[in-house]
């Protein structure tokens, strides 16, 4: 409001250029009032830590100056404290320079702000996008729309990590879950970021109209199918069921991604290259997640409990031909349950 500005403007004219730095001090004095209000309010502003630091430093500066001034004479400010004012100007300018450097260092916060628009979603939108990721759309003549958000894909990657960990559920077979956890996180994030970058690079070669953000979002939502398949097949261990789900659910989400890419690429060779690569990588990743983790767990189990348990029952499930002695119902059981059986029998 212009009316509240005029006193400051009037004083600025009155003080003159040599008091310019001092003027900033007064502006800082105004901000000292604001910082105090923030400290009392603790409204949760994320600048309150900076504000607190600023306030503390300002008060130390004010304290030092006040102490110096009080030593000379009782008056805190005024024409008599000329030397005090000058030293305070210098201190204040040094403080401003330091603050500028600290703000530049704190630009990490500004970098986080760059990501803010990608997290601007509503729960209903996330839900609808999850469902749409399983429905391929056949429109290939016009570029299909891809939602450029990162919340859904990020949460799906974390969910996939959690499901992978849940896949080793009984404690008897988990020996080094710390290492398994690091591997799970590395695998899921590595797949999401690495394959997105690789397909983006291929898309650049094939002149496809897709940005990195859109590729990340597309592949992230494609992991929803993986989450469903793994959640089901880690609880019901039937090989036929897994292959069925792999084809159906994995296939649907792959088809959806392929349709989107086809709609954004021109030329049959380019389309084949791009979509073939994506389909192969996506389906093979699901196969890998189902089989490789069990092998890791069983490999560790072998080395630790080798002498007590006959090796026939330790054969991994994914090589059915090597299971001659196991009873057919046992093939459907999780290896962990078999381990529990064996341990109970040995007591």
């Amino acid at each position, binding site marked *: 409001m212009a009316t509240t500005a005029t*006193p400051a403007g009037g004083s600025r004219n*009155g003080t003159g250029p040599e008091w310019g730095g001092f003027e900033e001090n007064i502006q800082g004095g105004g901000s000292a009032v604001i910082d105090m209000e923030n400290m009392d309010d603790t409204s949760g502003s994320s600048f309150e*830590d900076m504000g607190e630091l600023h306030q503390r430093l300002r008060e130390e500066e004010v304290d030092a100056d*006040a102490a110096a001034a009080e030593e000379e004479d009782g008056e805190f400010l005024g024409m008599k404290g000329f030397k005090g004012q000058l030293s305070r100007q210098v201190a204040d300018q040094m403080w401003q320079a330091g603050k500028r450097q600290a703000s530049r260092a704190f630009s990490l916060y500004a970098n*986080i702000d760059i990501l803010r628009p990608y997290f601007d979603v509503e729960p209903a939108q996330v839900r609808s996008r999850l469902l749409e990721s399983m429905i391929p759309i056949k429109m290939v003549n016009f570029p299909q729309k891809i939602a450029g958000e990162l919340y859904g894909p990020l949460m799906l990657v974390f969910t996939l990590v959690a499901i992978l960990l849940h896949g080793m559920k009984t404690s*008897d077979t988990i020996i080094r879950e710390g290492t398994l*956890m690091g591997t799970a996180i590395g695998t899921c994030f590595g797949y999401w970021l690495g394959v997105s970058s690789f397909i983006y690079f291929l898309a650049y070669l094939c002149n496809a109209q897709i940005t990195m953000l859109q590729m990340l979002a597309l592949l992230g939502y494609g992991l929803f199918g993986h989450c469903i398949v793994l959640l089901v097949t880690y609880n019901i261990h039937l090989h036929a069921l897994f292959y069925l789900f792999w084809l159906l659910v994995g296939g649907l989400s792959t088809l959806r991604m392929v349709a989107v890419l086809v709609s954004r690429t021109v030329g049959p060779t380019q389309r084949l290259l791009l979509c073939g690569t994506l389909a192969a990588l996506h389906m093979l990743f699901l196969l890998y997640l189902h089989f490789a983790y069990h092998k890791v767990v069983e490999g560790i189990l072998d080395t630790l409990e080798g002498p007590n348990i006959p090796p026939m029952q330790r054969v991994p499930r994914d090589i059915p031909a090597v299971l001659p002695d196991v009873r057919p119902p046992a093939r459907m059981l999780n290896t962990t349950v078999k381990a529990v059986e064996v341990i109970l029998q040995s007591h």
Partner: protein
Amino acid sequence: MAEAAESPGDPRTTSPRPLFAGLSEISISQDIPVEGEITIPMRSRIRELDSSTLNESVQNTIMRDLKAVGKKFMHVLYPRKSNTLLRDWDLWGPLVLCVTLALMLQRGSADNENDGGPQFAEVFVIIWFGAVTITLNSKLLGGNISFFQSLCVLGYCILPLTVALLVCRLVLLAKPGPINFIVRLFVVIVMFAWSIVASTAFLADSQPPNRKALAIYPVFLFYFVISWMILTFTP
């Protein structure tokens, strides 16, 4: 102009204007009771605080901090919508809980020589980086909570899971079997639900009302992973 001065709610119409005018013309020797009123109480209060906390005995300082931490533990165990964890946040409680959890989830050196060290580091890193990720997510979704406040709440709400771990260790001293596992599963599930309810009670208010579910879901995943680590622990 009088309205502008009155808008902060000050009924006096004449005194605020000279105050503001005095603040900016302070270098021209005017009487400056304003600055004195504004800065000196703060200064003297700060001086008072400094001297009081510097000169008190170490026991007083430690007991005050311990009482603050204990009070927050009580708030977590009986979650009500309150501002205590948010207003006076501190990271002592989360650190203590995280170190306790990481120490107890360590394997003994009987299994493997290399499993003692990395186990501690894995738990530590997972808890702190999980909390940082959830905080960043809630800030990006538009929540108005500060970084450390959120870390404080998430750390303190690990307390029920630490209790679950202690109970699981006691239960594991009995003979192993499926009943053992079911008891532990039940305890961990109950404590997991308690953690989520506690953290929701504190964190939900800082989110925009239509996005609470989006902010709570990663908290659910975070405590799920910690519960899984606790449930699958065998000494």
